């Protein structure tokens, strides 16, 4: 039976664990920071010499750590893009604006083990010559902000933060900044604008790549909470051991948020790719299966913006055989390993690690209307396709789900969504379009039936009305 693998949440989920400094230290806290600060320079085979900071950066790259926020981009590579020659300060921002519907994993760290995040941040900041860092926390998490501020005070008092950290002459300050309740603030350039005190309009890229022109037009690293927490473990375990967790190119552990029509919704930590979607839904260690008498209809595998997968779908995945040759194998939905690459190969994504399970009691039309309403509400409205398209989708799906649909609405919705994806300033365009594109394409008959039923009802009421007169 598949099991959880507790690394990031190892302490947080142990009985009696509290988010204060004392408890953290008792569990070996800030030892990774001490280890990092004592890193020796490293000689490379080619004669180059890596500074201690470069060693940590190299280790993060070697660990294979991929961003846990949604895109799954290599964290080490992201750090390597930072412009270190501009002469400007380098900033690091922890993206704690966790707001993708279905996602409730970062808050586990923020609420239960804030020092783990802070330790990961201090290491990451030191490795990147960052003197000032921010934690941008979602406005709806005031409790998390209080816990973080308390933890930062404790860290300052203990010399893990502030001037001359642990006597090595390194200064770092971290501030908590609360958002005001907008999903778009999770988009890294929107977040940066918001942090600068402006409306969270994502920036156009080019030219505003955060690694070059980020916060206050200075080089900036934006990493997710879970990603930064993982950095602590990479230092602690060493990159080689960390990379042994999970599967090749999908290393380490991930927090998974499981919600929807399962017996035991909740969060779980798994080795990436070592557990399948089916196990996450059905195993007693995870979701515990569907509700009695229900059958699976669909899975939204990586947060509400990821493309829905239909029960019974079989995907072609490339696998490396015993002989080292790549072969294509058929993998049914429930056998998909829960990792970055498999979900992408299945045409969706593992995104923020949020799995939403839909059983046969769910109307796909109503579910989509719910999702589209969310994206219409959260579109920042900066660029035309998303601003106008997101609300158009919401209105269309609402109409269809309220008995005022038409048979052509399936095509109508596809048309609108296709004109959003790939045309916008930020990835919100995809987030708004993908649910529509995947729902309508995969459950077309349900959408058309909804529209046809409404058309028939209107026809009947019209003819009945004529008859009466």
């Amino acid at each position, binding site marked *: 039976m598949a099991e959880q693998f507790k690394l990031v949440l190892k302490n947080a989920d142990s009985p009696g664990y509290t988010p204060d400094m004392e408890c953290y230290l008792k569990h070996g806290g800030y030892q990774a920071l001490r280890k990092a600060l004592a890193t020796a320079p490293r000689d490379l085979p080619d004669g180059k010499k890596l500074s201690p900071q470069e060693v940590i950066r190299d280790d993060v790259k070697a660990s294979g750590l991929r961003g846990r926020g949604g895109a799954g981009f290599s964290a080490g590579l992201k750090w390597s893009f930072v412009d270190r020659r501009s002469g400007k300060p380098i900033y690091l921002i922890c993206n704690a604006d966790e707001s993708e519907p279905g996602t409730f994993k970062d808050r586990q760290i923020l609420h239960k083990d804030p020092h783990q995040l802070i330790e990961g941040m201090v290491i990451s900041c030191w490795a990147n010559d960052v003197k000032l860092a921010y934690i941008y926390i979602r406005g709806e998490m005031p409790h998390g902000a209080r816990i973080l501020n308390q933890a930062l005070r404790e860290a300052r008092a203990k010399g893990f933060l502030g001037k001359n950290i642990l006597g090595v002459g390194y200064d770092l300050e971290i501030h908590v900044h609360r958002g005001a309740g907008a999903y778009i603030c999770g988009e890294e350039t929107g977040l940066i604008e918001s942090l600068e005190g402006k409306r969270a*309009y994502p920036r156009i890229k080019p030219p505003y790549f955060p690694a070059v022109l980020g916060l206050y037009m200075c080089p900036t690293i934006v990493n997710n909470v879970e990603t930064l927490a993982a950095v602590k473990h990479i230092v602690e375990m060493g990159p080689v051991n960390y990379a042994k967790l999970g599967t090749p190119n999908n290393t380490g552990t991930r927090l998974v948020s499981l919600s929807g029509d399962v017996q035991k919704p909740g969060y779980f930590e798994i080795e990436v790719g070592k557990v399948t979607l089916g196990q996450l839904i059905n195993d007693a260690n995870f979701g515990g299966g569907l509700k009695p008498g229900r059958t699976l209809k669909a899975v939204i595998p990586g947060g509400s913006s990821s493309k829905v997968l239909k029960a019974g779908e079989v995907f072609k995945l490339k696998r490396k055989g015993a002989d080292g040759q790549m072969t294509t194998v058929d993998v049914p939905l429930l056998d998909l390993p829960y990792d970055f690459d498999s979900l992408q190969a299945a045409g969706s994504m593992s995104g923020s690690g949020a799995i939403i399970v839909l059983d046969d009691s769910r109307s796909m039309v109503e579910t989509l209307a719910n999702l589209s309403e969310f994206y219409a509400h959260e579109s920042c409205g900066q660029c*035309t396709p998303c601003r*106008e398209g997101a609300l158009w989708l919401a209105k269309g799906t609402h109409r269809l789900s309220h008995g005022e649909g*038409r048979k052509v609405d399936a095509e109508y919705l596809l048309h609108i969504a296709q*004109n959003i994806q*790939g045309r916008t300033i930020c990835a919100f365009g995809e987030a708004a379009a993908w649910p529509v594109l995947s729902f309508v394409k995969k459950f077309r008959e349900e959408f058309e039936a909804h529209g046809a039923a409404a058309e028939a009802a209107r026809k009947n009421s019209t003819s009945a009305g004529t008859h009466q007169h």
Partner: protein
Amino acid sequence: MSNAETPAPAPAGPPPVETLTIKVDGRTVQVPKTMPDWQGKPQATTMLQACALAGVDVPHYCYHPKLPIAGNCRMCLVEFGTPVMDPATRQPVKNEDGSVKIARSVLPYEPGTPRGAIGCATPISPGMEIYPNSPATKQMREAVLESLLINHPLDCPICDQAGECKLQEYSVQHGQATSQFVEAKVHKPKAVDLGPRIMLDDERCILCTRCIRFAKDIAGDDALGIVNRGSYNTIAAAPGMKFDNNYTLNTVDLCPVGALTSKDFRFKMRVWFLKETKSVCTSCATGCNITVGSREDTVHRYEPRENDAVNGPWMCDAGRLNYKWIHREDRLKHVLIRGQKSNWATALKELTAKLATVAAGSAAVIASARQTTEELYLLRQLAAKLGALTDSVPRTQQADRLLVSADRNPNSNGARVTGIATGELGARLPLIAAGIRAGTITTLIVFGEDVTQCGIGADLLARLELLVVSDILPNPTVAAAHYVLPGCAHVEKRGTFLNGKGRLQKFLKGVEAPGDTRPEWEFLHELVHAVTGRNGYTSMEGLFNQMAQDVPAFAGLEWAKLGDQGVTVSI
């Protein structure tokens, strides 16, 4: 031949421009690697700029060459391709026929679907191919337009922008004939009083943020922003603030649709009835280039006309609205001799006779620096014949950081180069006043000024034997005149002004002058001819060219050489 021929030094041209070779619409073009950004600083040339150089217009709303890039309208999305590079050799991969293999940009997650990039912000790269007219580009444009139109009120029949609206123009060029939108439209505030001169219709707004960027980055008045979210986004002035600086009306020009309208112009005239005349603003020494919009001899608006040597695309609100006096009811419309209506023939005949007998040194000429250079030149000819003292009247107020000059005369430099004034305008006015008081000056010729405001009061005017006044509107000096010669507003005649920086700019006639009024240069030329005996020219071109021969600063100039944007002369 004793002189050995020395090789002529190579002309010191601009340094060679670094170029890139790209393809636009299948045509190979060489374009500069960098081009000026909105502040004039060199930046990597964008796809939109490259297309423009290749003669292909990429439609756009939010992009404006003189504003920071926003990239929000997505109208300039274009499909493009880049050379496929061999990762090992870093050399372009060739097709079988030897040509460079091009990879069209596609969605990373859907390789069959073309992906556009915004022309306004995407730099070109060597070997790039831009497809501004490909089916995919056209489809992207159509889709953006559709999005912009679904919540637009489509109230073109009552919209002031109609006829000069980018939403209309692009709908014709790139839009679709039918709409499939069946939902209820978003409703937003209408007739929002944004400031003393600006009215906003939020439903028409396409949220391109040109106005916001102009206010913040050009006018330095960060008064505008967006409130609400998504499709409910709405332009608004900051809470408790009015949009009220001296440049607000530029946002009406910038607004590509009918969202921002001028309170002065709205609902007054359909723009397609307006005749457009190239002219110059008279409100200060900057000489902003303008377009006069008129219909049937009525001026309806001034708009800035782009001239990077003077005003860029902007002008101030005060200058823009400074046209109402032209159609005032009390305009001087008749030739008056001692208060009695007369005619030009009689007045000029009598004046010729009188001026011919004026004793040398007993006359003075005060000519406004609002008169044209040609008029000032003619008055200087007359003054020379009479041995008259001449001067002009200064108008000095505070300058601003953008366009408004401290010198509120449009032609102070014209008064200087023609010799009407020397150095500081008005320096000789006390001399003239003293001369009148002492009885040595008995004849005064005044053009376009109320001299009672500058030390020559009604009491002094009463001592004169001959007071000749030409003006446009009544004033105490006109009231005291023996001869009143009604003149023209600058939109009623042609001429030139020499601005504060030595830019000589011509303006053209937009409307007919009322009543018996005549352009001053026309009757002056007759008078000066009659008095001095010097032959004149009956056309503006001839007059200007004669002036250019006489005035050293204008040496070598001809009317035809002035162009629409003027020439800079050394002053």
